């Protein structure tokens, strides 16, 4: 059982998601429709997982994630109907642990929440494609401060995820353990988040902003 907060500006969605998760045996502490209220509720109640919509009336999903900061124990799963991949990628770089489209079925959602609560990253093929694309973009941008890169094995694993193979199928194909596959995937995400944080800090220093991040 995990404790949860649901953040979505559509009341009907909040209800549907909360019901599915409650029926699966999880405890929904609160469901809120605005970004600032979400930040306050997450800080006060400290749920294990927050399910976050990208489009909120006051703050964007990315702003909520940045507002939580890196020390926040709550893990965030992004749920988005927008199809705006740039937003989703930004959210994942800002610390989200996974991404599901809203059309995902109830069992898929429950499974994703449980995996995020257990500390795993939830990679859909769509997200794997974006992360692969982002590493290539960073490599081609030739940034002066260097860029994160994937090992050959990590690239291989990520491509298979993007092509729709399950972790089990990948493990079988590459003769790896399920856990090793999971670790490879996890690492591709954490390297990207680390790079993103370093860039934000560098930006803040260059522009003379203190303590804002």
């Amino acid at each position: 059982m995990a404790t949860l907060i649901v953040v979505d500006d559509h009341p009907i969605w909040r209800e549907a998601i909360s019901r599915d998760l409650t029926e699966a045996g999880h405890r929904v502490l609160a469901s809120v429709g605005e970004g600032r209220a979400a930040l306050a509720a997450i800080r006060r109640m400290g749920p294990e997982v927050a399910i976050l919509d990208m489009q909120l009336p006051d703050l964007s999903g990315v702003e909520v994630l940045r507002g939580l900061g890196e020390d926040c124990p709550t893990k965030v799963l992004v749920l988005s109907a927008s199809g705006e991949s740039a937003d989703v990628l930004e959210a994942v770089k800002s610390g989200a642990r996974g991404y599901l489209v809203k059309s995902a079925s109830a069992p898929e959602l429950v499974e994703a929440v449980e995996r995020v609560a257990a500390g795993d990253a939830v990679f859909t093929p769509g997200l794997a494609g974006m992360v692969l694309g982002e590493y290539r973009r960073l490599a081609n941008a030739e940034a002066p401060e260097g860029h994160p890169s994937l090992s050959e094995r990590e690239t291989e694993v990520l491509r298979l995820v993007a092509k729709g193979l399950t972790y089990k199928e990948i493990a079988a194909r590459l003769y790896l353990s399920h856990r090793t596959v999971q670790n490879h995937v996890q690492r591709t995400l954490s390297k990207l988040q680390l790079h993103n944080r370093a860039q934000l800090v560098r930006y803040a220093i260059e522009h003379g902003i203190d303590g804002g991040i």
Partner: protein
Amino acid sequence: MGIQTQLRRAIAVFRFAALGYPVVLCALMFDSLARPALAFLLVAAIAAWTGSVGYLYTHRGYRPALLYIDLAVTVAAVIASAWVFAVEGRTTPVSVGPWLAGAVLAWAVARGRRSGVVAGAIVAGVGTVFRGGVSENTFSEAVLLVLTGLMVGHLTRLGVEAEERLGQAAARNAAARERERLARDIHDSVLQVLALVQRRGNAIGGEAAELGRLAGEQEASLRSLITSESYRHPLDGQRDVRGLLGRHSADAVTIAAPAVPVRLPAHAAHQLAAAVASALDNVRDHCPPSTRVWLLVEDDAESVTVTVRDNGPGIEPGRLAEAEAEGRLGVAQSIEGRVTELGGKVAVESVPGQGTEVEMRVPRSRGRTDGDAHSGR
């Protein structure tokens, strides 16, 4: 500030400057003027009128009454100057010169070229009559006044029309932006509801599941419509491959792609998209209906790669070569043909029971990536 207001100010300035003409001429010929005291008074009166009319035009606009009074005063000044500015020993008196054009300019700007021409003709006609009939001086003055009325009236209309068109274009732009914003908002909430219907429908089952499936298809096609719309903009002869593939997105087809546009020259992008469509047709024709497909779009500096993977029954080893030998590989050939025409490569990999993978790699500039199609991956 509108063009009319700016012209009004310019004319006020012009009239003041033109005042210098009678002032300087009278001062130079003061000793030979027949009526120096009256001449001084007339110049003072003209200057006073110039000041008041300038003020009134700029602050009250071109009122009809004021325009008529201005023209009357100008005509009166012409008549008076013919007698007051008389010079001893000369047949023609000193002229008020370019100052006369002030009223003509005001009429032209306020009422257009026809009124400008009429005002110019009146002022010139009166001048000709009272200043000793037609002479080289009065004739050239008349021509200049009429032409001034014509040209300034014409240019003013052109300026005003351009200003209106500019205003309309700006309004249209603002309206288009607002429509776009509204469309985005509406699309977003429609997408949410469609996704919700799909989700609840599937959970309830039966007929509701069918409704859910339909809602899901609509959601996918609407979403690809929005995204391809926004991808269409910045592309100087190039197309975003993601936008072209977006229409395949459906329950059974998952698309994975970078978050930034994947650009190819328009022809190459369309050929590649057509090759992908063939590969998807192939899956539909040869695999059971429950088969799922994943599209992966990858972009590195030299090439664009699209992989089509299905989880169908796969192709027995040798079947491919066999079919090719029998000339029965229509679809595979159409994929191969399109991709090789672009200087690219196709790789087909299939394991019985584990589906089929078709990898299409197209170089950014033709012929550059021959030989390294599979390096580093």
